């Protein structure tokens, strides 16, 4: 399917039977899921179940062995793939923030639009300052990452991704390295994004967040999706024993 064929009524991200191995270890054993524009989905599951690996496949950080991932109709599992074009559409936020430590918060946000998208500096700066306010970091524009708390760094990282104006945002356990009290502020930022209609894919352990914000919850274990559903039914009427066990441990 060529890129031009994609229309917003089709899934924005569509994975079909995705397989991925690291050497002899098969991490993903046929993952399929669809995410529509404006949806927020959460992928939960025990560690080692392949959820982080899967989310990293969506923007081609990890190449997949077989299957198909379409992002706005563009096949990710294609040797001819223009990775840069794909990554302009897909933003990603990491567990360890990965801000550039030699640049201030504002520079971190502005750099990619200026250098990668070749956009006008003044316009980018305006947008960046707006984003800083949006993630509630007014006054921290000129702070270096080392001077910010984990939660603040993570919000800069979110703003940095948003500055590229992506169509989809991937969040890879973004609150896992944070103090409990700063988790809230990061989740609030993501929640606002989701409510504004940003398509979000989260790998998370925050069940409260998944229950309140997600449109759909996927539970993965040992490389497959065991069960999925809208949060209302997923958290109360899980059928698979593995899901039940996981939920009983974590809730």
């Amino acid at each position: 399917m060529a890129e031009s064929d994609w229309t917003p009524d089709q899934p924005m991200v569509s994975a079909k039977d995705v397989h991925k191995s690291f050497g002899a270890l098969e991490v993903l054993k046929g993952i399929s899921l669809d995410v529509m524009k404006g949806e927020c989905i959460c992928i939960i599951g025990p560690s080692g179940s392949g959820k982080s690996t899967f989310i990293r496949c969506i923007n081609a950080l990890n190449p997949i062995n077989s299957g198909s991932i379409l992002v706005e109709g563009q096949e990710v599992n294609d040797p001819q793939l223009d990775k840069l074009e794909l990554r302009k559409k897909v933003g990603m936020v990491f567990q360890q923030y990965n801000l550039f430590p030699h640049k201030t918060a504002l520079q971190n946000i502005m750099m990619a639009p200026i250098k990668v998208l070749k956009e006008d500096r003044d316009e980018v700066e305006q947008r960046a300052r707006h984003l800083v306010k949006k993630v509630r970091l007014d006054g921290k524009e000129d702070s270096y990452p080392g001077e910010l708390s984990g939660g603040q760094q993570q919000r800069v990282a979110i703003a940095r991704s948003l500055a590229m104006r992506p169509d989809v945002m991937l969040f890879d356990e973004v609150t896992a390295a944070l103090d409990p009290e700063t988790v809230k502020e990061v989740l609030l930022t993501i929640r606002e994004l989701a409510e504004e209609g940003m398509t979000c894919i989260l790998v998370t352990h925050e069940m409260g967040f998944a229950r309140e914000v997600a449109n759909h919850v996927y539970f993965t274990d040992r490389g497959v999706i065991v069960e999925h559903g809208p949060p209302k039914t997923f958290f109360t009427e899980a059928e698979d024993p593995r899901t039940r066990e996981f939920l009983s441990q974590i809730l």
Partner: protein
Amino acid sequence: MSGARKHRSVGGTGNLAVLKPFSLHNAAPSAWRLQPGHGYMLFAALVLFVLVGEVQAAPARPSIIATMWKWTPFLLQGFAFNILISFVSIIIGTMAGAALGLGQISVSRPIRAVSWTVTQFFRNAPWLVLLFYCIFLIPFEFELFGVTIPFPAWIKAVIGLSLPVMANFSEIVRGAVQSIPDGQWEAAESLAYTRRQTLWLIVLPQCIKRMLPPWMNLYAVLTMATPLVSIVGVGEGMTTTGEILAAENRSDLLIPFYMYLLCLFFIYCYPIARWTISLERKFAVKI
């Protein structure tokens, strides 16, 4: 840095890893460090040798101190040449080494292989052997577009010293780039930076800080290696000292004069070493 690594590896030798409270004092390398006291010791040795020489000297001869004072301008001239050689060598070596180091992390396999081989060859070859090769293999003059360009021995010696500097700096560059966490590359990748942009805008600026202390260390080592060029007849400090001793023809001057030269090297290299240490400390705390 190596001290910190050693510190960490203690847990891996069979003992169970135990999380101990982090202490800056323990983590800082506690190995031998250059102190001002070492300089005083060196200076005291110089004074001692001079005094012993004075006592032993035949009464008719001029005193050792007077002789040293007399030759000081000549000796300093020779020593200045050591510094000049070290400057030119570090500049050439750093530029060539930077290119070679970037070659070592190239995505192209052949470039990587060639850069690695060149680096390893020159890094592990004895400096003196390289020096001899350059002196005897490079012609003393070049013919370029009908113009004869002379190639004096000291320039050949500079090239000879630049080669090991290049190879060592190549390793410093490679090590610094590889010490940047993968997360930086991944974050840049996911923001659609090209590899080249990632390297120049994100990775290398962070490397400069990490490269500065080992680079300064390399410079100090290079400076201390410059007397090697005396063997091929370049008129630097070592050669000058030899000439002075030949002119004076007094065996009691031998040790004081070489000690004098040693002190000159110490006075020059010591501040560099101190500065390197303070930079290492500063960066170690920040990162």
